[in-house]
């Protein structure tokens, strides 16, 4: 029988491995959401009165703002990367008592909103306000983003490499420089990018310290002149700037292939057990924890105990519930938007890549821009306008960048042979994703989503515009007190916000306990 003599292709045989249309449409929807603020900005910018836009954009101040913003981003990203990798290496490589606790404490500063952080530091009175103070404050509060990325990268380095380097005559420092650091490069670049975007979009610290970055200038343009077109043009300049930062990160990324052949059976690096190393480690870690956690928290506690009025327990608990609720919705939406983007980006699909970059671009936008964009689109739909759902969408778009990278990496680390076996065991692509890929990537997917949750809890400007009328979160309660200079009355809200935000932070700080597949010894 001639096998090749078949006139019609038999049913069930497919010519090309197609990417599922469901996945592509899901990614397109995600992309649509991500594009919303950009579409809004372009629309607003085009509507503007050219003359007044010209005045705002081509003033001497713009160059100054540009320089200030760029120097702030470069300095903070550089310092945070240095500090973050040092902290991560210390935590991972030196044998310390209560390492899990210390790890949590080092990550905990991201639970403190930047306006609270800055306010507390200002209250200490040891920082002059201005550019340098902004560098210090932003570095301290963003370092955990790098520390997290660096710790994850360090955990993936096999101890045998360190052992071999030792036998080749390298000391600990040389090993870090020549073996460990090069392998952390991509993770550090990703961390530095998140820090840069954070600095670009931050309003809390720069406004309190009087540093004229793009974000503060945009806010002032709205506030001073109600000139939405000029503000949109400035925001687009900010987007362009973040585009440059993103492409820098992409080009600095080393093209290392992610090994996907099997679940890694990496033996973790044995911690160094030496007194000298411990002393250095403890002093580094405690200095950081003192500056980034204890200092601001003690001011907050002082304010809390100095408050003139009793705590409004009902208001406090309602605000806490609202905060958790709306942040969780945001995190959930972010997860749904991030998964298709991450999956398509993994397959080197154009839509995936565009969406992934778009997500990063949008992350640099100040919350007020996102708020207004969703006001502009959302107010056409009274059913969803000023509901927690739409606010969740705003959070998701704003902070998608903080989860999409982590999610993509953890999906990429699911061994390909396992998904192939699942296919031979009769599982369709969708079922393989649900039964194998997602559970194996769960720790990473979870931390990415928790990072969105955490960021959403702290968000203010978009919350003010998009929350349901009368719906108060901890951040808005805090704002309504600080706006009229009742800092002590804001303290309970700030404190509770930090405490609640500490929970996801703590979960993120734990190393993912992926079960090792290293086989047991055979008993013969």
């Amino acid at each position, binding site marked *: 029988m001639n096998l090749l003599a078949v006139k019609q292709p038999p049913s069930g045989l497919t010519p090309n491995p197609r990417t599922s249309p469901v996945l592509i449409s899901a990614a397109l929807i995600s992309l649509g959401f991500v594009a919303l603020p950009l579409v809004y900005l372009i629309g607003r910018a085009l509507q503007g009165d050219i003359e007044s836009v010209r005045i705002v954009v081509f003033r001497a101040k713009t160059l100054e703002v540009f320089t200030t913003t760029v120097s702030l981003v470069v300095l903070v990203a550089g310092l945070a990367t240095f500090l973050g990798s040092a902290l991560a290496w210390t935590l991972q490589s030196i044998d310390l008592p209560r390492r899990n606790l210390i790890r949590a404490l080092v990550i905990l500063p991201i639970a403190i909103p930047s306006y609270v952080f800055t306010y507390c530091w200002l209250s200490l009175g040891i920082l002059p306000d201005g550019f340098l103070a902004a560098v210090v404050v932003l570095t301290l509060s963003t370092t955990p983003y790098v520390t997290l990325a660096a710790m994850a990268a360090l955990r993936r380095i096999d101890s045998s490499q360190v052992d071999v380097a030792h036998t080749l005559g390298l000391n600990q420092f040389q090993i870090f420089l020549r073996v460990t650091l090069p392998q952390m490069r991509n993770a550090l670049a990703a961390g530095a990018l998140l820090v840069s975007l954070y600095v670009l979009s931050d309003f809390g610290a720069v406004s309190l310290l009087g540093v004229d970055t793009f974000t503060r200038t945009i806010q002032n343009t709205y*506030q*001073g*002149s109600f000139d*939405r077109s000029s503000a949109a043009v400035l925001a687009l300049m900010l987007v362009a700037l973040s585009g440059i930062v993103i492409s820098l990160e992409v080009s600095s990324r080393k093209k290392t292939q992610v090994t996907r052949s099997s679940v890694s059976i990496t033996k973790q690096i044995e911690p160094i057990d030496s007194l000298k190393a411990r002393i250095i480690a403890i002093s580094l870690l405690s200095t950081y924890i003192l500056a980034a956690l204890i200092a601001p928290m003690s001011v907050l506690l002082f304010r809390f105990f100095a408050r003139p009025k009793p705590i409004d327990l009902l208001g406090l608990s309602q605000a806490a519930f609202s905060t958790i609720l709306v942040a969780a919705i945001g995190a959930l939406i972010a997860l749904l938007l991030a998964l298709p983007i991450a999956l398509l980006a993994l397959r080197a699909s154009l839509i995936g890549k565009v969406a992934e970059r778009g997500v990063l671009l949008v992350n640099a936008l100040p919350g007020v821009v996102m708020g207004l964009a969703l006001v502009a689109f959302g107010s056409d739909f009274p059913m969803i306008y000023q509901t*927690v759902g739409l606010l969740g969408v705003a959070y998701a778009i704003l902070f998608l960048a903080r989860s999409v990278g982590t999610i993509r990496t953890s999906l990429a680390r699911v061994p390909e042979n396992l998904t192939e076996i699942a296919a031979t065991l009769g599982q369709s692509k969708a079922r393989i994703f649900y039964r194998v890929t997602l559970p194996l990537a769960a720790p990473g997917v*979870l931390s990415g989503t928790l990072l969105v949750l955490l960021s959403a809890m702290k968000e203010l400007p978009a919350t003010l515009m998009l929350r349901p*009328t009368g719906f108060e979160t901890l951040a808005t309660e805090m704002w309504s007190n600080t706006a009229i*200079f*009742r800092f002590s009355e804001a303290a309970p809200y700030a404190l509770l916000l930090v405490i609640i935000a500490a929970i996801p932070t703590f979960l993120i700080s734990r190393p993912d306990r992926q079960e090792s597949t290293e086989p047991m010894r055979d008993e013969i």
Partner: protein
Amino acid sequence: MFKRLAASLLTLSLVASLAACSSSKIDGDSLVIYSGRAEEYTGTLFEDFTRETGIKLDIRYGDSAALAAQILEEGDNSPADLFISQDAGALGAVSSEGLLATLDDAILNRVNEYFRSQNKDWVGLTGRVRILAYSPKRVTVLPRTVDDLTKPEWKGRLGIAPTNASFQAFVTAMIQTRGEVETEKWLRGIAANSPKYFEKNSLIVEAIDAGEIDAGLVNHYYIYEVAEELGREIDVKNSFFAPGDIGNLINASGIAILATSKKTEPAEKLIQFLLSDTAQQFFVDDVNEYSAVDSSQSPGELIPLSDIKAPRVDLAALKDLKRTQSLLIKVGLL
């Protein structure tokens, strides 16, 4: 662990959507207010109003300028019935887009003429006066006019907040009364004295108290707020300029009904309530602001509005900040 996570996320989203439905439902009968004035500044007035009239209120607090921007973005779809603003500029911005409804004459006539918008679409609730906050210890000779502040003896001693709406409104008023050329001259004079720049008026007052600067251009009520927050007497006092000087500009917090509102009648009731003698008395006694109705009233030990002899300016025109900002940009303050 994955299944538990998925299950808990699912439950959470269910609860969330339920909560979303229940919390987003604005009662069809209630008035929606976008308030740029903090809850603290209205005290129990809103509750009293609901108790008296049975009209429910849904209040969205926010920053006046941000709320104005939000109303502008919402356009005809705005769910708001009323807009309360901290300053006249934000009201003017919304008014000039034609988004405010014309007010009833009874309301317009209730307030002092100064607090009526020329478009007849918003009224002032309270008056807020620009003053010079100063340290009585370090400032012995008070300036008579704002022009005195450009003199060399003020070099490095003054604090201003050029990005703040209240300062920009003051400059706008100066352009209105003196013209652009004179205003530019004054701004250059101030800039030449290298003042310290602040984000907020309250920070200026705190800086005076801390001895960083000797005086600053702020609104009159900040010294009370800062003292209350710090919980002690502060080394800062208010001083008016000579009668009629532009430095004594009176700005207004105000209220307007949105053109899209279908609840004009209850909305007017609320405005009338806020302009009633009791409410106005509350603003004077408890918020330390001037009454928009009775110019003989004054907060604390300050002189009454009628004695300040504030310059006549069109409050509604205070929203026209484009020229002001270009000017501030030109002299390098923005």
